[in-house]
């Protein structure tokens, strides 16, 4: 980074620190904060979408759809997210490759499972073996995002389901009295009104999602926790220009500050949103002293 960094062993104090904190490894560490924020920014709306789908399915009149929605909510909510992450991503990846195998290699005659191996034709590999590394990373990131969305979608579905039930009956009845169809009532009355009931639940869910991001490293994404462990561990002079002892405390302290800040900012934003949503509405949120 800096010109004087060519021989770190001769440096000390701030100059050494400046060089140390700008190594390629540290740059990757800083970039991973972006990864986490990006994941949060994409996952939250996707999970909300899954949750909406799940909630609508769970209150559908068509029985199999209702069962499907309820099972999704019940099962995914019951299983610890960590256990889910440990096998689901590989299953998802294999599922996608199997679909591609069916689509791209119609004359493939070998079994897909050969002993322990999962084998598909090379065209069906996802991403293709010769794809540059960043494509693999983006793919891994998308898988992680999708998995997060499925897990948190179930929780969001539970919240939205409750919120839909919480919209006062009278509102629905009035809509029916005006001759709105079920779909119209849903679109014009239920959905706009449910958000205020859903927001406390959804904001808590957001807090839980923020704190679940350290699990990213289980999904093969090199996130802040991965780099903090990697950088904090002691290194001997043989393998690095910047040998140091066990510095994990400092890196984890930095993570702690990051998470506390993120939580504080979220709290403030969500509080404002709640004030706006409850403005003029006769709910407890609006009236709470």
């Amino acid at each position, binding site marked *: 980074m800096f010109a004087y960094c060519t021989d770190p062993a001769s440096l000390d104090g701030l100059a050494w620190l400046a060089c140390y904190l700008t190594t390629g490894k540290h740059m990757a560490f800083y970039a991973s904060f972006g990864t986490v924020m990006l994941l949060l920014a994409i996952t939250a709306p996707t999970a909300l979408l899954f949750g909406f789908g799940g909630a609508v399915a769970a209150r559908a009149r068509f029985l199999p759809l209702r069962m499907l929605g309820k099972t999704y909510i019940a099962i995914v909510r019951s299983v610890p997210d960590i256990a889910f992450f440990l096998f689901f991503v590989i299953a998802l990846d294999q599922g996608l490759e199997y679909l591609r195998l069916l689509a*791209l290699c119609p004359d493939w005659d070998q079994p897909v499972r050969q002993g322990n191996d999962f084998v598909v034709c090379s065209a069906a590999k996802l991403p293709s073996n010769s794809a540059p590394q960043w494509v693999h990373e983006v793919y891994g990131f998308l898988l992680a995002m999708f998995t997060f969305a499925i897990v948190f979608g179930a929780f969001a579905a539970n919240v939205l389901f409750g919120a839909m039930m919480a919209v006062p009956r009278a509102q629905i009845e009035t809509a029916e009295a005006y001759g709105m169809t079920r779909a119209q009532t849903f679109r014009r009355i239920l959905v706009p009104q449910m958000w205020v009931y859903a927001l406390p639940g959804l904001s808590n869910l957001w807090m839980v999602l923020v704190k679940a991001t350290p699990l990213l490293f289980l999904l093969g994404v090199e996130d802040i926790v991965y780099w903090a462990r990697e950088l904090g561990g002691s290194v001997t002079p043989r393998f690095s220009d910047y040998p140091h002892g066990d510095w994990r405390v400092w890196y984890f302290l930095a993570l702690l500050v990051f998470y506390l800040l993120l939580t504080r900012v979220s709290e403030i934003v969500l509080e404002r949103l709640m004030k706006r949503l409850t403005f003029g509405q006769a709910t407890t949120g609006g009236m709470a002293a």
Partner: protein
Amino acid sequence: MKTILTATAALALGTGMAFAAEHSETVRLGTEGAYAPYNFLDDNGEVAGFERQLGDELCARAELTCEWVTNDWDSIIPNLVSGNYDAIMAGMSITDERDEVIDFSDPYTQPDPSVYVSTMDDVDVENAVVAAQSGTIQAGHVASMEGATLVEFATPEETVAAVRNGEADAVLADKAFLMPIVENESELSVVGDDVLLGGGIGMGFRESDGELREKFNAAIQSMKDDGSLNALIEEWLPDGATF
């Protein structure tokens, strides 16, 4: 929800096809990147170490384009058999258990002994609290020792830390991993004799991928023949035996 699935699938199908046309002989090598001197991340965050140099040379000799990928140790074999990379080069000892699931190349190191490291010179490791990384052959070994108490940690770093702070009396790990640490810290020292566990270290392949294994076996053999493998071992594993 269904449209999302279809859209994702379409996207997935699309990205793959765009790259399928490029050169086909890329081999992806999976490693842990946290096991110096075999493999670790250098200051620039690149995979480095004994296996990086060896792997690059093997790929050059086998005329393959190689790409390094890091993966968590716990899931390194499931990801190989699932096809996320084509070979493992991660300081992995050849054991019967692993051999049932994947195929190994010929070993590229002699069996690497494990050693105990402790802050005390006179500790009786047979009746001590011994730290090891969970899921390693060392953890399995300590678990089967009658008098010793096994303490498992998730990372190799933590096992050494446990000895420094007195939680464990000694740590059992690969000699090549522990020696650089012992040389650097005066309070740590090797106790007892070397423990021989597992075979040498080899590359791991899918059992259905015999062709690739043969290519690398030929390359390993040629490096053994012209002495370049021994030169690498002497450079990176000063305590290791040569071929």
